[in-house]
């Protein structure tokens, strides 16, 4: 398994150039925080990692799609699968690699965000504005990191969709575009689904709504209460349902991958 991970890492680096994503994730928050984000919006911009958050999600979806579809388009799928390893091991190695890449990008964008914030503070520490700067650039680390964690948990669903499409259609274009649409449009889509929910209440347990709520879950008691009143169940039930959705999708993607003659 370690060998498989090493091979995936080599492909991530040399073939898919994950470092380009890392550089973007690092540089983007420095640029946006120091040059574009007004003082009043600084704190909320940290939440989106100075714009890197969406880049990382898209990056992860692209890397997920590529790691499967390109083996088919390059014709490398045959030596990849014709080995002593089971297809489950090969499948897992790819998923683990993408998740590691995700965290790598998060680390880079966190560093970029922290540096952007420091530079912004240094730029605006004149005697009169210093008190405002300190106020608007303050950061609640605990809720900030919790939000990052939740957006990762929410991304697992998007990743599963891309994984499924990649394995069904073997086309990275289809998988990537669907993934990107899903990543920017889940909130829009859940607005559409909410009108359907009005027609039939149990539809609120649909994967899109569940995923959307999970991604924004903040852990506050207010949030818990609104979940309770909307779903009629505790937050933990929501998480169990979400986990089940995600697991089923990964299992389905694996089932397709495992049965494919190449």
């Amino acid at each position: 398994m370690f060998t498989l991970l090493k091979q995936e890492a080599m492909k991530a680096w040399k073939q898919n150039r994950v470092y380009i994503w890392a550089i973007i994730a690092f540089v983007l928050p420095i640029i946006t925080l120091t040059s574009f984000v007004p003082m009043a919006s600084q704190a909320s911009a940290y939440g989106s990692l100075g714009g890197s958050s969406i880049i990382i999600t898209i990056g992860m979806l692209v890397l997920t799609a590529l790691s499967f579809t390109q083996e088919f388009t390059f014709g490398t799928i045959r030596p990849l699968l014709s080995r002593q390893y089971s297809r489950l091991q090969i499948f897992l190695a790819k998923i683990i690699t993408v998740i590691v890449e995700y965290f790598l990008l998060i680390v880079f964008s966190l560093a970029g965000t922290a540096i952007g914030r420091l530079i912004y503070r240094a730029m605006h520490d004149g005697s009169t504005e210093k008190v405002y700067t300190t106020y608007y650039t303050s950061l609640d680390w605990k809720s900030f990191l919790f939000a990052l964690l939740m957006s990762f948990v929410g991304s697992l669903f998007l990743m599963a969709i891309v994984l499924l499409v990649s394995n069904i259609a073997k086309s990275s274009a289809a998988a990537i575009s669907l993934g990107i649409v899903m990543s920017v449009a889940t909130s829009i889509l859940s607005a559409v689904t909410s009108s359907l929910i009005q027609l039939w209440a149990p539809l609120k347990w649909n994967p899109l709504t569940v995923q959307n709520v999970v991604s924004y879950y903040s852990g506050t008691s207010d949030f818990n209460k609104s979940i309770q009143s909307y779903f009629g169940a505790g937050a933990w039930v929501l998480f169990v349902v979400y986990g089940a959705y995600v697991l089923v999708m990964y299992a389905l993607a694996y089932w397709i991958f495992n049965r494919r003659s190449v």
Partner: protein
Amino acid sequence: MSLLELHHVSKNFGSYQALDNVSFSVEPGRIVGLIGPNGAGKSTAMRAITGLMSYSDGEIIFDDERIRFAKNKSLAKMGNLIEYPAIYPNFTARDHMTYYAMDAKDHADIDELMKITGIDGEKFGKRKAKKFSLGMKQRLGIAIALIRNPKFVVLDEPMNGLDPQSVHDIRALIRSLADKGVAFLISSHLLDELQRLADDVVIINKGKVLRREKMVDFLAEGKTQVKVQTSDNDKMLAVAKAAGWDASMGDDRVLIAVQGDVTAQKVLKLATDEGLEVTDIQTGQGNLEDHLLSVLSTDATRA
């Protein structure tokens, strides 16, 4: 016990039967040529052997283990190049070697293998594989199939796009590995090449194995021919046919099958009687191509 055995393997794609009761075996150290027309099922058979494709009936045994679809420990000892080389466009040749050697218990010496397959040197060292020419990619594909010191190597059209020098080098490489006990299953439409390389032949047509035997035996079955070159080959052909002989026009000489009372002497006599000047005359075995075509045409008339 053979290294590889196929027993009554069948495969359907929908209603189309791509492999029909295919059986043959490969012994250690033998080079087996798998030949047949386009769509005969060569690549399909190779995909089943490498565990990449499910098959409906029969069994495939490799190194005393059954090859099943999608799970096989024994595949560690098999190398393959099926249809197109497995290349990551942004890797260099050496990256490929490093990558494919990673999961091997022991692997070939990378520098040496790159040298023999001709993918060493400045041109390959720094350049990414996407900039390689067809033949360069093909040579890299062969190196990939060999890197993990396999016991058995499946090569589908390995000589595709190779220049004469590379063909020569690769042939020598395959031969030397076979002498060390490595077995090969090689498909190719370059029959002259295969005739020189393969020890055994398996002839497959429309998913069925028509023949499986030693190359020398298969060739010996073919017609022996008198090949005669004269001052007027067209006239030579006409008179040979008029004499009731099985004659045909070759590239620059008339080919007359040796059968019944036909001998080189008779051909020579006929030519001189007709006033033709004989510039060259030889007796020789027909080649793989001629005999393959005749076997296939017999199969077609039977069907």
